């Protein structure tokens, strides 16, 4: 008897740029299903809200990503290799040793103190956009530079190296990235960061994240540099993409945009709902874990050694909230999976929240008539990265 063929994971040809890859929703509609990734690795795809939470929090699933299912069709694994400081691939105490000391830099109250500065950065960029006049590209005017400056400030690195930070992030998150090219960029960035580390050592500061790591943790230099590069890259690619995706989602749903404009003071709750819906609607299978022993999830047994990938389409699961498939900005905040779940949940989530709240509120308050200069479906989207977003967002106001 032969086993049924494992179908390839749908990962291309989004029917709508803000929707899932063609065929993805159908492929997962009957519960857990094993699929084949473009790099030849098979994994179970888990799509229920409870199932995704289980995979991401149960210690019987390891975060070790060596040999993981990936969207690349060529090249070699760039991300997720076991190296000093790569807490994303660590489990248990080894992970906590690196993760916990970073919590102070992302504390809710510390980020609240940063809000006036974030506002200032946002205002400066919107001023510049207004001065240059319509049409403008929201991505290059706001989406990219704002999170880039904010994360540089949080880490305590000079902003003049912005271009290098962005280039490193691109190498890191490229689907068919080259390990050698990433290492070359990382080495260049190490040179910049080593100078910063010396300055922090001399001043003894713990006011920024690098100062904190240098002067108040037991991190080794190679761990510290890896963490700093990872945080810089993550801070660039994620918030900038999501601010763009949120804006496009609102352009397409004027009745929902009206809710934000009517009550910009609710930007905190609105960002949670936009995160839930946008991430859920994009679908696709991403984050992988590997079972270290047999575990039952959603009625199937994941055998020890098998890979599991979760889909955040679980954010549209009716067990999370009623009419979960719709964007409802009047909804109260629910426990969505937009920042992941479990001990590896996005470290920068509270920073991203602050930035997205300020960006959205300010953009639509200052430019109440801002609108896309071309239809959303005709815009260019970046499909060559494991992170996804619009390449440009032409707007007028």
């Amino acid at each position, binding site marked *: 008897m032969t086993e049924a063929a494992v179908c390839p994971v749908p990962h291309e040809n989004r029917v709508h740029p803000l929707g899932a890859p063609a065929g993805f929703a159908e492929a997962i509609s009957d519960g857990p299903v094993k699929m084949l990734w473009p790099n030849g690795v098979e994994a179970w795809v888990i799509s229920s809200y409870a199932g995704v939470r289980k995979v991401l*929090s149960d210690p019987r699933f390891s975060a070790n990503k060596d040999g993981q299912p990936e969207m690349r069709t060529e090249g070699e694994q760039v991300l997720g290799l076991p190296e000093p400081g790569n807490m994303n691939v660590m489990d248990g105490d080894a992970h*906590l040793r690196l*993760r*916990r*000391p*970073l*919590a*102070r*830099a*992302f*504390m*809710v*109250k510390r980020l609240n103190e940063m809000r006036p500065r974030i506002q200032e950065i946002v205002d400066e960029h919107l001023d510049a956009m207004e001065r240059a006049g319509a049409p403008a590209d929201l991505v290059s005017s706001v989406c990219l530079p704002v999170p880039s400056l904010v994360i540089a400030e949080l880490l305590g690195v000079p902003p003049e190296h912005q271009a290098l930070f962005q280039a490193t992030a691109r190498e890191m998150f490229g689907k068919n990235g080259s390990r050698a090219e990433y290492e070359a960029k990382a080495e260049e960035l190490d040179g910049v960061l080593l100078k910063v580390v010396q300055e922090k050592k001399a001043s003894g500061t713990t006011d920024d994240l690098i100062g904190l790591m240098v002067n108040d943790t037991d991190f080794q230099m190679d761990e510290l540099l890896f963490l700093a590069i990872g945080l810089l890259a993550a801070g660039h690619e994620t918030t900038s993409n999501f601010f763009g995706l949120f804006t496009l989602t609102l352009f397409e749903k004027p009745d929902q945009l009206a809710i934000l404009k009517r009550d910009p003071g609710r930007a905190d709750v609105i960002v949670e709902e936009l995160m839930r819906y946008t991430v859920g609607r994009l679908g696709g299978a991403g984050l992988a874990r590997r079972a270290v022993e047999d575990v039952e999830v959603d009625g199937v047994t994941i055998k020890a050694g098998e890979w599991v990938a979760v889909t955040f389409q679980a954010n549209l699961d009716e067990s999370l909230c009623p009419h979960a498939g719709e964007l409802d900005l009047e909804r109260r905040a629910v*426990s969505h999976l937009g920042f*992941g*779940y*479990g*001990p590896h*949940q996005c470290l920068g*989530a*509270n920073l991203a929240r602050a930035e997205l709240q300020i960006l959205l509120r300010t953009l639509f308050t200052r430019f109440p008539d801002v609108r896309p200069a071309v239809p959303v479906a005709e815009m260019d989207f970046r499909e060559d990265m494991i992170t996804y977003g619009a390449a440009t967002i032409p707007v007028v106001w």
Partner: protein
Amino acid sequence: MTVRIDQAKCIGSGQCVLAAPDVFDQSDDDGLGLVLISEPPAELLPGVRDAVDRCPAQVVTLEE
């Protein structure tokens, strides 16, 4: 009704502070979660239950 945080496994994500700011805080020393009111009055319980649900490390508990 007793609220607890298992400090040994807390990752300091601050989700509890967002869910119930009157009941939780984060320590200035290490960023980890702190319980400000361990026996919260009834009106604060919805927020506490939300914190239990949202905690990514599953370390917030409410003993009913």
